């Protein structure tokens, strides 16, 4: 009589081979299972990236309106920018509207934009560096139709009359809120920035709060849908193989080997499904919002970093949920008395 020994523990590589073979042969069925994951993750991704797109679109629309308004103010003061020289004194960091304004001025045919930093010889910021001619403060207004004060900061003490003497027209505009109303006797500081009324600020805050709540709500719902979608398809694909699990147990497989098989298989299916789902979901969001708001607006408002930031949780959700949904029934079947697992009929 041979003594009873411990059963051999098979390495991961054996399990991996068995899994790959299974997927190859059951390709159609694996595809159906993966489709469940694709659908779930695509839904999650389209909701998440939809939020990003909507946010970006509304931001972009705001910047565009603001730029347009500043431009029309400026045009009213100094005439159309075409073939004009415009001087810019930078007094602090620029916001998006300001850089956009510089770009728009150039687009509208401004002959030159002279750029000077109030604090000495700092170079123009990289977003506008290509469009402007950097010079010093005392030369910035030479031949200019208008002088713009850009950036957030305090209006510097400059020799305004001398500056304006070298310019063509005495128009000084500030693109952000400034305290002074006059820079020199008889020369008003035109404020191009629009000041929001208190009720507007309040309405904006409320709207922001609502949007945040709606986004959270949508994310939760999409997570639930994703959970159901993935767990349903994976549970199904495992339960229909209870018999196979029982057979393997009869042949001497350890429960740990069965778990290994389903761990590898479900994480592979989850990974492939999640990558495909994230791409499909993003594409759907872009197409959907593109048709609503116009593709150029949507594409210009897409922030790659944020989209990538959502890509990773989608992958994690896809793989994690798949593994959970497969491993639970698989280890349940593996723990079953083999005879019972064999007689399971689905």
């Amino acid at each position, binding site marked *: 009589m041979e003594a*009873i020994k411990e059963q051999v523990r*098979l390495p991961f590589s054996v399990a991996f081979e068995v899994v790959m073979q299974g997927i190859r042969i*059951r390709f159609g069925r694996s595809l159906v299972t993966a489709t469940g994951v694709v659908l779930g993750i695509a839904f999650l991704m389209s909701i998440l990236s939809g939020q990003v797109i909507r946010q970006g679109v509304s931001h972009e629309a705001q910047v565009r309106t603001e730029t347009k308004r500043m431009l029309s103010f400026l045009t009213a003061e100094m005439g159309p920018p075409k073939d004009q020289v415009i001087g810019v004194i930078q007094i602090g960091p620029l916001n998006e509207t300001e850089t956009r304004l510089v770009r728009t001025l150039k687009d509208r045919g401004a002959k030159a934009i002279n750029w000077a930093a109030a604090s000495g010889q700092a170079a123009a910021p990289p977003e506008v560096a290509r469009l402007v001619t950097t010079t010093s403060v005392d030369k910035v207004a030479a031949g200019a139709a208008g002088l713009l004060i850009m950036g957030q900061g305090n209006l510097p003490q400059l020799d305004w009359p001398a500056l304006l003497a070298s310019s063509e027209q005495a128009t000084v505009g500030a693109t952000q809120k400034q305290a002074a109303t006059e820079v020199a006797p008889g020369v008003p500081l035109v404020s191009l920035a629009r000041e929001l009324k208190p009720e507007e600020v309040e309405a904006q805050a409320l709207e922001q709060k609502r949007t945040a709540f709606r986004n959270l709500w949508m994310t939760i719902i999409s997570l639930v849908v994703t959970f159901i979608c993935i767990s349903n398809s994976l549970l199904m694909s495992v339960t229909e193989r209870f018999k196979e699990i*029982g057979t393997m147990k009869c042949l*001497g497989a350890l429960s740990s080997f069965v778990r290994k098989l389903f761990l590898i298989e479900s994480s592979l299916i989850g990974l492939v499904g999640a990558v495909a789902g994230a791409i499909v979901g993003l594409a759907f969001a872009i197409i959907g919002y593109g048709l609503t708001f116009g593709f150029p607006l949507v594409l210009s408002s897409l922030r790659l970093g944020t989209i990538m930031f959502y890509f990773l949780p989608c992958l994690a959700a896809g793989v994690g949920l798949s593994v959970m949904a497969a491993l639970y029934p698989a280890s349940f079947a593996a723990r079953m*008395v083999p005879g*019972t697992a064999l007689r399971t009929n689905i």
Partner: protein
Amino acid sequence: MAIDPVKFDALFRKAEEQQAPCIIRAVEVEKVYRMGNEEVRALQGATVDIYKGEYLSIMGPSGSGKTTLFNMIGGLGKPTSGKVYIDQVDIAQLDYNELAWLRCRKVGYIFQTYNLIQVMTCLENVTLPMAFAGMDAEDARDKAIAILQLVGLGERILHKPGELSGGQQQRCAIARALANSPDIILADEPTANLDTHTGEEIIELMSRLKEELGVTIVSATHDLKMLKRSDRILWIEDGRIVRMAHPSEIDFSVGDFD
């Protein structure tokens, strides 16, 4: 079929006096299943000794506890009370790991529905239990080819179960059961899903294996031809073993055998 006189005598002797070694011994095995609130007493004290190298058939109407007894003596389930010894080892004392070892090497299972792994070829189905036993892949391949030739599937080793007839699939399942050279083969109605002719071939194959390899075969069956080939027949009813007889004692023509 010629019966070994020693073995023939053994049929009428008490277990204690038995000469041939007892390979499976079930003592007062009870098994209670819980189905909802109801208790189903599938086995109510079954005692049986199975000797090395014999061919035992288990008979009984459906629901009589046939499959349960089959599972208990095969180490596929644990009895509620009573003892099952396989090769003198009490299987209740084994942990999951040792049970897996036992199922892998001591016992080969043959099922009514073949239960081959559909995504694997015949060869892979046969090498799978060898892989579980930790055998080297090339040795396993050689041994599997030899076994498949033995059961008459030498030409179809690379076919998948779906591409084979029922009889061929059952041959493959028999080859798989033999993979780790077990002492015991447990067959649960192996011919039930086959036509008469194919069933006969399978029976022929099994009794040949018994003669050539000296394995012990325990088979649950309704098949007359299988009963006639067996060394002993055991009747089970309502979870109790009610009768034990040699095929020569039974008049198969009048149908009192069921």
